[in-house]
């Protein structure tokens, strides 16, 4: 699904995806569910693989099945933001559905994905291999959720910078803050590489980080069910633990 020109992957009339899913507009409901799928399918897939120790093919089927049923069965109607976080609710739904299917020994193999979002299981499978050992499945699900939030925010940022004619800012951010190496280039190196003044590197990176923060918060807002939940999640994600 191509990101929106303004940089938001899913410009909604409502802030929250959950609110959009429950809204009257069928088209918006579908788009909201697609966005939820995009945000949550990786954590769900990886969680199922590690928690329930199912084979890859079964996990793929289950993940597609889950999000298809999300669309059909109005799972989100029973979600109450006051009682807990959306991601916890979804994880619980995953567990429940898996246990029900295992009990009924009934797993429908669908002819093709009923969801509109492209699910790159190959990529996800490689990412599992890099996972840390010794975590509880719940912690792993949370970690993957955070990773997805940040990854989607990076895509938003990319689209936003492209639309605003600030691709250099994004590339600097990608080069420095998304650098895979522990030893990152210095600002002087970046200035030479991008043929910029040193102060420009500082300012461009500051701009990109500022926009990235905004993208993270916007992404988070969409992925939570209420303003209170959003604040709690933002505090958990962006707040600082006291020494």
């Amino acid at each position, binding site marked *: 699904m191509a990101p929106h020109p303004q940089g938001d992957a899913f410009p909604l009339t409502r802030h929250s995806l959950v609110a959009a899913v429950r809204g009257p507009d069928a088209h918006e409901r579908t788009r909201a569910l697609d966005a939820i799928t995009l945000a949550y399918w990786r954590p769900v897939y990886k969680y199922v693989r590690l928690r329930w120790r199912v084979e890859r093919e079964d996990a793929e089927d289950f993940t597609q099945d889950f999000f298809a049923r999300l669309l059909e069965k109005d799972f989100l109607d029973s979600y109450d933001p006051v009682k807990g976080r959306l991601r916890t609710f979804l994880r619980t739904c995953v567990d429940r559905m898996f246990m029900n299917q295992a009990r009924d020994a009934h797993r429908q193999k669908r002819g093709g994905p009923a969801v509109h979002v492209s699910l790159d299981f190959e*990529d996800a499978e*490689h*990412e599992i291999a*890099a996972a*840390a050992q010794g975590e509880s499945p719940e912690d792993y699900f949370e*970690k993957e959720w*955070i*990773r997805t939030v*940040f*990854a*989607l925010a*990076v*895509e938003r940022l990319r689209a936003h910078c492209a639309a605003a004619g600030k691709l250099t800012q994004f590339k600097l951010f990608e080069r420095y*803050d*998304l*650098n*895979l190496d*522990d030893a990152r280039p210095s600002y002087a190196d970046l200035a030479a590489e991008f043929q910029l003044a040193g102060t420009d590197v*500082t*300012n461009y990176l*500051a701009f990109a*980080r*500022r926009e*990235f*923060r*905004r993208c*993270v*918060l916007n992404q988070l807002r969409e992925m939570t069910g209420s303003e209170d939940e*959003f*604040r709690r*999640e*933002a*505090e958990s*994600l*962006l*707040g*600082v633990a*006291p*020494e």
Partner: protein
Amino acid sequence: MTFLPDRVVARLRTELQLPDLSGTRYRVVKFLGRGGMGEVWLAEDTVLERSIALKILSPESGHAELASRLMREAVVLARLEHPGIVPVHDAGVLPDGRAFYCMKYVAGQTLDKHITGMDLHRRLQLLLRITEPLAFAHSRGIIHRDLKPGNVMVGPFGEVLILDWGLAKIHGNDPSVADHGPAQPARGGSAETETAHGAIMGTPGFMAPEQARGETSLIDHRADIFALGAIMAFMLRAPDPPARPLQAIYNKAMDAEISARYASVGEMAADIERNLQGLPVTAYRENLWERASRLAGRNRVAIVLVLAYLLMRILFVVFSRR
């Protein structure tokens, strides 16, 4: 979608947690703590080359109401120029859009940690030092509303500062405060619009009953006196309960009936001072024995000298008869 490895996620998370001070004169040093609506960071003022504390609205607090409350806190602090109230140096909006204000960095201990191992006399003297900035604030029509040991800091030279005026209420008709306040008086003559009607704000255990019930129209400076009484009780109760006159002082301050409390911080301070000097306090009616004990305690040396003189005289008489 780009895959972000764990270390990149961790790095991004750390960077997001830091306030964006680009373009400002400040450089972040470390995180100090989290308050009700914001974070407090130790930073360096690169122009004046000194340490300062920055109070910044939390990243998720995008509400204009919270930003205006933070600014209001800065305005209140700026009007309270007193050695016992942390001074504000600057206020504004960071490049990332978050409201902030800059204040003096106080390196010290909060009251609860500072009084460990301290004797009663020193605790009472410390308590008197807390009353000074509070009385000053009240004289300027400002009520703190969140006094507690965690909001009192004792600096390295024994200076006492009252912190966190985020819940302060501008009360009364002091023109130097009310005229420039951000809101017009709403009801009862108080400029109380920063909290929703009936909203309960404060800390349990140190909050006056009328504050706990959300009866905002009843809250005046005596709510702070209640809190001061609670602080006094907190400071004096361990390891053993204090003498009855002291208990009477903090019980009077903490009376559930507002009119029964001390009318001012000054009155309460005067009673504490009287107790320190061995004089009777207004909050407690001594019986004859207690009065005699107090006088004897206050004049111990004189009594010993007179008794010694009388003993000497008696011995002279006894020996002269032999």
